[in-house]
């Protein structure tokens, strides 16, 4: 058993050959530094800060970061269900690190067993992350967490970190894809209703006037006086002097319900538009977007408890490959495998002809942010548009493929690298213009790379080298 070494300046804690990154509110935050440590310890005194750091880590698309074990120092923040779901343990002082060291070791060992395959769509990427996270933590159950800070009332924190508050409902679509793929089985848990306008579940349900939708109304008994057949709201019968009811038509005092009068119904009166009515409409006002939904127009969403299947477990270790929602079928592209095979043949050909051929890569640098903002159908739309513009600048013999949803690869055969470079620059200009026109409120960052194929090296190696250019 070694002694604890704390480097306060660097925020590093060391114990028995394992080092930990210590993150606290009064220190500059650099999540990437966590990659070099066994775990991240977060100062859990303030919940806001803890939530923010946990979210930053788990929402990363780098397996070195998002799978990192997280320990909360000081239990306050750990009581938050969101933080608890996303962290791996709690300690009350650095002295307790040794108690959890073996557990952290175990997680890191299991992470080493996982194969990481780049998925194409955002949904597939999130599912890959989820599988890896569950596998590394030896978990098989994924249960919904009721939460007031969730826009859908029930949330799955590990999925929710990928979306803005307003886009949180997308996690249900992701889970449905995973279920359809057979990675999970599901069990009904509950149903929530979502605003038809913005898919929020923060709704205020109340009875409203059927004419003007106002909730400013009051309810009266209707009174029928038998002797004279007068019928009216009870306010017609009351007076300011005493509690007795007197008939406005025949002035008699009402004495005994069922004998000389009864109350055949009730009536509601709207103080806003002054109509009276018997049946309220029930409306749900969305606390997110203020839309007033008639309840029958709300979209129901079933909430399930999920359990990892054998197939899911297998996919966690071997990588989760395709989903029907993937992008392979986008017109004008070939499958990634086909692209690699064709590159191999091309290298064979230039070896004999001494020709010049190139591969070009286009990377959407901030794809995670972009795709989570625009949703999955718009994502596909965007990629389709990008491919169409690229296709327009190419000869028909050139091929396009997706390596992932953020990286497009293009083959440009039998032209000098200089020309390929120029074409690539032209394409980038067109693409950037297209993106700027489509997204006014945020910037889509593009990066490109051109490589002349070298017939001394394998196709796979050369593609990997190019992909490395894009790793930040």
């Amino acid at each position, binding site marked *: 058993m070694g002694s604890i070494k704390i480097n306060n300046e660097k925020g590093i804690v060391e114990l028995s050959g394992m080092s930990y990154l210590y993150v606290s509110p009064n220190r500059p935050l650099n999540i990437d530094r966590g990659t070099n440590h066994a775990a991240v310890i977060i100062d859990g005194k303030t919940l806001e800060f803890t939530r923010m750091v946990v979210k930053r880590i788990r929402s990363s698309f780098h397996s070195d970061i998002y799978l990192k074990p997280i320990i909360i120092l000081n239990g306050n923040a750990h009581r938050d269900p969101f933080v608890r779901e996303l962290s791996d343990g709690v300690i009350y002082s650095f002295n307790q690190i040794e108690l959890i060291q073996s557990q952290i070791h175990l997680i890191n060992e299991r992470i080493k067993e996982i194969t990481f395959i780049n998925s194409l769509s955002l949904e597939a990427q999130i599912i890959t992350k989820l599988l890896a996270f569950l596998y590394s933590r030896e978990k098989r159950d994924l249960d919904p967490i009721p939460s007031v800070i969730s826009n859908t009332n029930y949330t799955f924190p590990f999925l929710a970190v990928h979306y803005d508050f307003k886009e949180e409902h997308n996690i249900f679509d992701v889970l449905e894809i995973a279920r359809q793929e057979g990675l999970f089985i599901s069990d009904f848990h509950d149903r929530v209703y979502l605003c038809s306008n913005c898919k929020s579940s923060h709704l205020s349900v109340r009875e409203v006037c059927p004419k003007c939708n106002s909730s400013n109304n009051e309810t009266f008994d209707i009174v*029928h006086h038998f002797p004279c*057949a007068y*019928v009216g709201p009870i306010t017609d019968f009351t007076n300011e002097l005493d509690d007795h009811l007197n008939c406005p038509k025949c002035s008699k005092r009402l004495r005994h319900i069922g004998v000389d009068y009864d109350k055949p119904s009730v009536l509601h009166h709207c103080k806003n538009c002054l109509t009276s009515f018997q049946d309220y409409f029930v409306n749900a006002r969305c606390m997110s977007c203020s839309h007033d939904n008639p309840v029958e127009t709300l979209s129901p969403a079933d909430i399930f408890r999920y359990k990892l299947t054998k197939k899911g477990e297998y996919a966690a270790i071997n990588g989760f490959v395709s989903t029907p929602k993937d992008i392979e079928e986008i017109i004008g592209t070939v499958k990634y495998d086909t692209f690699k095979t064709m590159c191999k043949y091309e290298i064979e050909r230039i070896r004999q002809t001494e020709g010049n051929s190139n591969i070009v890569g286009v990377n959407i640098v901030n794809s995670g942010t972009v795709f989570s903002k625009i949703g999955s159908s718009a994502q596909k739309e965007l990629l389709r548009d990008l491919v169409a513009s690229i296709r327009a600048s190419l000869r028909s013999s050139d091929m396009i493929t997706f390596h992932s949803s953020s990286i497009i690869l293009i083959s440009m055969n039998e032209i000098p690298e200089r020309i390929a470079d120029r074409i690539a620059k032209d394409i980038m200009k067109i693409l950037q213009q297209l993106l700027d026109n489509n997204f006014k409120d945020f910037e889509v960052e593009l990066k490109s790379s051109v490589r002349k194929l070298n017939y001394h090296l394998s196709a796979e190696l050369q593609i990997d080298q190019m992909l490395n250019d894009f790793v930040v």
Partner: protein
Amino acid sequence: MSALDDFISFLTTMGFERFIRIFWFFVFFELLRYLIVDIVALLSNQLKLLLTRRKRTEALYRLRLEQPLVSLIIPGKNEGKHLYKLVMSLREQTYKNIEIIVVDDGSTDDTPIIGKDLQKNGFIDKFIRNNIRGGKASAANTALRFTKGSIIVHLDADCSFDHDAIEQIILPFYIDDRVGAVGGNVMIRNYKESLATTLQAIEYFDTISIGRVVSSHLGIYRIISGAFGAFKTEALQKIQGWDIGPGLDGDISVKMRKLGYKVKFAQEAVCLTSGPNTFKKLAKQRLRWDKSLIRFRIRKHRDVFIPNQGFSLSNFFSFSENIIYNLVLNVKWYIYFFDMINNYPSQLGYIILTNFFLYTTTNFIKFVLFSLFRPRRESLVYFIPYMPLMVIYFGYFLRIVRTIAYIQELFFKMSYKDPWNPQKTSAHAKELGL
């Protein structure tokens, strides 16, 4: 052959005086009151229409200019099945500024669902459901309480209307400011369904419709049909709506008259209703109606006969005419009948036969003559073969029913037991003499 010879000699040897002596009932009541007076009144009415044509045109112009909101109220129990058709026919009306209020008086069928659906889809403006039945008057009062229009039209759910019926029934309010209520012209829609409905159709043509034109002209019109009647809201509020009774028809017009309002009949405001299709059902309906004469005229509103502050001559005449030509006439007929048995027992067969011809002939003459004063003349030929039966219909069927009704009501106050009103309300009405 000798019977026919006898009959012919019975007729030919009869002098004028003897004719009057034997057929006094026919001459004084049928001929005088229902033919001569009617024709004179109709002609005078026609003349008045001609003379006031300009005033009527002006009234119509003013009505169309002002377009007052008219509240159509439809109280009823288990009438849901008629609502859709009714509402559609109301949407066809030439008069557009209407609100439709349906009151469901404790229906036990699908009426609540149908009503709510119509309201939700904007076909009616308000649907009020009373879970406990309170009777027709209370249902009408429920609707009244929530109307917004300056004129209220009371409808039965199983009626349908000529496309200008609403405009026609509210027009009299614009012709004369003092008009407080207007009755619509109800006719039988299902006149081909059975003999009972055919005979009713003829009755509605002549006695009811023409009778009302006449009484309206004479200022003694009193029965506003519950199926189709219009009221000035202000007047209806003054009398605070409908009271319990054996029908809504006769009472409210009396109360209006007492307040000094005029009550008119709008012949051009045509409404079609389904008459009871068997004589048994018809008898039940008429028993209820006829009891209301006793209950309303003789009991509840007997004060019109007493000269006091609210006394009005036309009310006095209206009531007197009503009582004489119904109650007294009914009694007189039996007197006539015994007069004949007593004094002419040997010629009774001839007398009945002659009466039969006399009545049929006048019925026929009336039917043809009155056609000139009717808004609808199509299909009149259809009824001609049925004319002889009218003697039996009027002379025996309706008379016997009326006799029973009068006896039941006069001596036993049976109308308070009528299930048409819930017992809980009738008990109070009886106690209060309403």
